[in-house]
C-alpha cells in the first residue's frame, strides 16, 4: 500500500481520472503483473507439444542387449573366418543370449504383451519399429541354428559328410546372424531418429553410428571379460573407444540451442556426459595403459548408461514445448 500522506500518489490518481474522462481509455501500465495470474510459459501454458516416450527401463536395456548381441555375431563371423573358433563360439553364445533376452524385454515393454505377435502381422519398411521386429526375428532364426551347428562342428559330434554339412550350416547361419546383427545394433538409432522428438531427430545420423559403435565395443568388451584376451578384440576395443571419443566431440559441437538442450542440460544431459566419458576417453586411456578389463568394464557401463541417457533425453525433450518450436528451424 502506498503512503496516504504522499501528495504525489494523490496527484497520480487525479491524473488517471482526468485521462479516463478525456480519452475514454487509460493506457498506462498500472501494476506490473509479471508472474501474475496469467503464466508466461512457452506454448499453451508450458504443455508439451509432442508426447514424450512412454518407454521405461526395458527399451534402453534392450538397446544395450541387442547392441552387443548383433555385433557379437559380426565378431563371430570375423573370428570364424580367421580360425578363432573358440572366440566365435563364445561370441555366438552372446548373440543367442541376446536373441533370447531381447524379445522378452520387448514383450515386457508392450502395453498389451499378450498381443506381441501382432508385431509380425505386417511388414512396413517405413516403420523402424516394424523393421526392428523383423530384424530381431531373422537374427534369432539365424543365431540359434548358427550356434548349434557351430558347436556340433567344433565338438566333432559327427563325422564325414554330416560334419561337412554342419560346417556349411555354421558358416551360413553365422553369416546370416552377422548380417542381421549389423542391422540389429544400428536400427535402434533409426528408431529414435525417425520420431517427432527434437533432440532425437536432430541427431538421427549420430544415433545409429553411436549405437552401432557402442554395440561393437560392448561385444568385444564382454568377450574380453569372458577370458578372450586376444589382440584383435583389443584392437576393436581401441577402435570403438576412439569412435566414441570422436562422437563426444561431434555432439559437443553440433548443438542446436533450445531444440536439443536436453542433451546438454538437466539430468538427461548428465547421463549422456557420463556415458560419453565412460565409453570414450576413459575406456581409451585405460586400454592404452593396458588395464584391459577395466577399459572393457568402463565401456560396458558407459554403453548401458548411454541407452538410458538417450531415452531420458527423449522424455525431457518431448516434454519441452520450446525445444519443438526451436527445432522447426532445422
Amino acid at each position, binding site marked *: 500500500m502506498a503512503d496516504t500522506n504522499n501528495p504525489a500518489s494523490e496527484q497520480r490518481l487525479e491524473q488517471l481520472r482526468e485521462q479516463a474522462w478525456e480519452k*475514454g*481509455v*487509460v493506457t498506462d*501500465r498500472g501494476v506490473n*503483473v509479471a508472474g501474475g495470474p*496469467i503464466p508466461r510459459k512457452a506454448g*499453451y*501454458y508450458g*504443455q*508439451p*507439444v*509432442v*508426447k514424450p*516416450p*512412454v*518407454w521405461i527401463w526395458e527399451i534402453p536395456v534392450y538397446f544395450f542387449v541387442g547392441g552387443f548381441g548383433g*555385433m557379437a555375431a*559380426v*565378431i563371430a563371423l*570375423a573370428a570364424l*573366418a580367421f580360425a578363432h573358433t573358440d572366440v566365435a563360439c563364445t561370441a555366438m553364445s552372446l548373440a543367442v543370449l541376446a536373441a533370447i533376452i531381447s524379445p522378452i524385454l520387448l514383450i515386457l*515393454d*508392450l*502395453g*498389451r*504383451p499378450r*498381443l506381441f505377435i*501382432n*508385431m509380425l*502381422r505386417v511388414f*512396413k519398411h517405413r*516403420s*523402424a519399429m*516394424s523393421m526392428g521386429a523383423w530384424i530381431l526375428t531373422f537374427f534369432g532364426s539365424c543365431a540359434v541354428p548358427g550356434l548349434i551347428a557351430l558347436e556340433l562342428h567344433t565338438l566333432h559330434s559327427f563325422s564325414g559328410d554330416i560334419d561337412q554339412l554342419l560346417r556349411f550350416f555354421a558358416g551360413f547361419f553365422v553369416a546370416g546372424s552377422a548380417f542381421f546383427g*549389423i*542391422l540389429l*545394433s*544400428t*536400427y535402434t538409432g*533409426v528408431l529414435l531418429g*525417425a520420431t*517427432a522428438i527434437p533432440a532425437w*531427430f536432430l541427431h*538421427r*545420423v549420430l*544415433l545409429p*553410428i553411436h549405437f*552401432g*559403435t557402442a554395440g561393437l565395443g560392448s561385444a568385444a568388451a564382454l568377450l574380453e571379460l569372458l577370458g578372450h584376451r*586376444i589382440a*584383435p578384440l*583389443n*584392437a*576393436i576395443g581401441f*577402435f570403438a573407444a576412439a569412435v566414441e571419443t570422436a562422437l563426444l566431440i561431434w555432439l559437443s559441437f553440433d548443438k542446436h540451442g533450445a531444440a536439443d538442450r536436453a542433451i546438454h542440460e538437466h539430468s538427461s544431459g548428465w547421463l549422456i556426459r557420463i556415458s560419453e566419458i565412460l565409453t570414450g576417453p576413459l575406456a581409451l586411456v585405460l586400454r592404452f595403459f593396458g588395464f584391459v578389463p577395466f577399459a572393457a568394464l568402463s565401456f560396458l557401463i558407459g554403453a548401458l548408461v548411454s541407452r538410458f541417457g538417450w531415452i531420458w533425453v*527423449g522424455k525431457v525433450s*518431448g516434454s519441452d*514445448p520450446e525445444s519443438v*518450436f526451436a527445432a*522447426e528451424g532445422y
Partner: protein
Amino acid sequence: MIGEGIQSTNQRKHSYVQDRVEVGFFTDPSVCIGCKACEVACKEWNQVPDDGFTWSGNSYDNTGHLGASTWRHVMFLEQDRQKGNQITGSMGLPVDPASPVRTDPQSDMSAAGLAKAEDPFRWVFLSDVCKHCDEAGCLESCPTGAIVRTEVGSVLVQNDVCNGCGYCVVSCPFGVIDRRPEPLPDAGGAFKCTFCYDRQKSGLVPACAKVCPTESIVFGRLDDLRARGAERVQQLQQSGYSDAQLYDPRETSVHGIHAFFLILGEPEAYGLPPKPQIPTIYLQSAWTAAIATGFGAAVFAFAAFLFFS
C-alpha cells in the same frame, strides 16, 4: 454453408463413408464459447475415462492436453499481447477522442474499430482434436498395422490389434496419440480421436460436431470446409482481426490435415507446431548412417582379425 445457421451440415444425415468422400472438421475459436459440450459428448459416446476433476491451475481447463483419454480438448487461452498496458472501457467508446462523431459508424462499431484500440487481453477458446493428417506419423510408424486410413480419409486406431508398443506416441508431430496407463479400462493400448468412425458409418455426424451449439466445430466435406474456412478468415480480417489465419500445414511433409483450425495469433500459443513434419522424412539419412556404420564395423572387425591375429 455460412448463413444457414445451426441447421448446416452438422445436423444432417450423410453417406460420406459409402461415397468415400474426404471429410474434415473445421474448428473456429472465434465463435467458441468454451462450454466443453464437445469434450463431454466425446467421452459419453466413446466411453472414454475422465481426466480427473481438478483445474489445471491456469484457467477453466481441466484436461490440459490431448491424450489417450482426451480426444477433444478445449483450450482456454488468456492472451496478453502487451501485459500491463491495460486499455479499459474501449467498448462502445470512440476510438479517437479527437473525432467523437464517426464518419462511418458501421465500420467503426465493428471489431475493426475496436481492434484499432488494440485490446491487449484476449480470451480465446479452441477445441483441439486429432488432426487426421494426410501423411500421418502414427499410421506410418505403427508396426502392427493397427492404425489405418478410413474411406473418409481419417486415421483410425483398431483397438483390438494395437499391442501398445508406444512408437506412435513419439511419431505424432502434434502429440495427440498416447498409450493409456493402468488402471484405466482398456489400458496399455494407444488411443486417440476416432473421428467417430462408428457414427459416420451409420450416416451420423461425429458427437463433438453434433453437440456444438455455436458450430465452432463444423463437420463436412473437406473441400467445402476449406472454402468455408478461407471465407471465415477473410471475414474476420475485414472485421479487424488481422491475425486471423487458418492452421492447415499443407506445405510441410504432413501435407495438410483433415481437422484444421482457424486461429487468432500464432500457432505456438495454442501448442501447435508451426511446421509439423512427418518423422518418416528422417528415415533416409538415419538408415544410411545405420547401414554405413554396420558395414564399417564389420569391415573393421575383419581387419582387426586379419592384421592382429
